[in-house]
């Protein structure tokens, strides 16, 4: 599919010549590093306390105290940051009148959507790859179980994909990038709050459905090291659904 490749290459180029990627990536990496630092120092302080109380060496579980907290905090950081990355994707095309050009080029709407999604996903994966410096550095000085760290990264990868798809959808409905960003904030926050509603409804069928719809529970499983097909299906289907909706919106804009 050469047209999709062309779209991906062009989008990546646009990202890296604009300051967005550097600002968003910088904030993301800084937050990741700073949170990791806080949890590590906090864990260290706890270890010293334990040693003083028990004497000798204390067994500190880095997986529980550092990584689980770190991954749990990162979903909020992603919620704040990823809409900034996606807001321009389609809104800018409309604003700058290049939308009509794309729509009259011999390329399908699905190819445009997929190309744009892949490009922003690659940017995000690049950012995520850089954060692996934290566990790699920690591995030099301590022992921890790599398995839940890897599933945590899988969780971030899936969660990020879903957030980006929501953002791409939000960007398809407007030509204003600020509106696009806030629409995705709103949608993601709502999706988050569904978890609260779910626990309020408790173990009823309605409660289970609502909890399933929120991304929280599925992410927690992965962070704890559980790979469940149900959670993978949730993210993949959620991402595909949002991309499909973006496709419908873009296609329908011809009929207005």
């Amino acid at each position, binding site marked *: 599919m050469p*047209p999709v490749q062309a779209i991906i290459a062009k989008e990546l180029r646009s990202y890296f010549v604009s300051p967005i990627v550097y600002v968003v990536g910088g904030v993301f990496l800084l937050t990741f590093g700073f949170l990791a630092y806080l949890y590590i120092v906090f864990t260290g302080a706890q270890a010293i306390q334990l040693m003083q109380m028990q004497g000798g060496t204390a067994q500190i579980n880095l997986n529980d105290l550092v990584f689980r907290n770190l991954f749990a905090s990162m979903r909020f950081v992603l919620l704040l940051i990823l809409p900034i990355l996606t807001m321009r994707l389609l809104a800018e095309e409309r604003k700058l*009148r290049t939308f009509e050009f794309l729509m009259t080029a011999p390329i399908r709407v699905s190819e445009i959507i997929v190309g744009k999604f892949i490009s922003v996903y690659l940017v995000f994966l690049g950012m995520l790859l850089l954060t692996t410096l934290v566990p790699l550095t920690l591995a030099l000085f301590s022992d921890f179980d790599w398995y839940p760290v890897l599933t945590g990264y899988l969780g971030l990868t899936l969660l990020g994909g879903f957030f980006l798809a929501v953002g791409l959808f939000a960007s398809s409905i407007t030509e204003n990038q600020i509106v696009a960003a806030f629409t995705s904030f709103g949608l993601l926050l709502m999706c988050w709050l569904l978890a609260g509603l779910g626990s309020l409804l408790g173990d009823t069928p309605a409660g289970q459905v609502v909890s399933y719809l929120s991304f929280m529970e599925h992410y927690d499983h992965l962070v704890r090291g559980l790979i469940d097909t149900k959670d993978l299906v949730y993210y993949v289907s959620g991402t595909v659904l949002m991309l499909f909706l973006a496709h419908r919106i873009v296609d329908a804009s011809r*009929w207005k």
Partner: protein
Amino acid sequence: MIEVCNITKRYGHLTAIDRVTFRVEKGEVLAFLGPNGAGKTTTMRILTSFIPATEGTAHVAGFDCADQPDEVKKRIGYLPETPPVYQELTVAEYLMFVGKLRGMTGAGLTQALDRVMERLSLGSVRQRLIANLSRGYRQRVGLAQALIHDPPVLILDEPTVGLDPKQIIEIRELIKSLAGSHSVILSTHILPEATAVCQRVVIINGGRIVAEDTPDQLSARLRKSEKISVTLKAPPANITERFRDVPGVEHVLTTSDPQTVLIECALGKDIREDVARFAVGQNWGLLEMKPVSMTLEDVFLKLTQREDELPKSSETPAGERH
């Protein structure tokens, strides 16, 4: 090459175009002339398969614009009103991107790029960011984008808007050079443009086609009499009646300039000599005399203004409308 049959486009209650029908043959350049909001862009968007028509059919190179958009899009080069350029790319990057979107690769793409750069004299800005280019260059990049795949059909929405006079002439020359091998539709509200580059003119107003012909025939058809504008140094008060004495004169009209009158006679007659002799004989001080031919501009105004908007005399001279 292009066949439009009774297309209508409604946006809710608003009818943007109403039963528009026209044809463009292979190698022909057609001007789509009309005031802003007449429905030019809507028609072009339907032809490029960007929007569907509410009723009627449009065919480009034998393919239906509504049912076979992929085939239609492959055969069209389209320049929308605003050149669709990405500011953050260089000219070469942008045109490569367009070429790849159109499925071109490798040597074919590089050759096409060089050819189109040469044709639009973009060589000097090849590596410049589009954001830093002037309006004229951007417009040319937009045209290059429409031409890169050498499509049989070109649809250009106001291609010379925002250009300086020299650039306008260059672009017109380019469009003329495309005639013969390409079918071109260009929309414009600048009348000399239609006369300069097109073999046929379609005048559209309020969503309807009001006239369709060659530029010459359009003006001939609407001209009902020959007119001469006469400027005198010392015209008498009753000048309109005095000129009636000249044989052949049918009407004498005053203009906004009290020293100038407009004399009409039957089509095909030349009474300039008689008028001059008469004016000199009366010692009115003949300063200037020239034939007034109906320009496409008059035709256009006449066709696109509604009856009630027209000045009382439908024969008002062109000179007065400026």
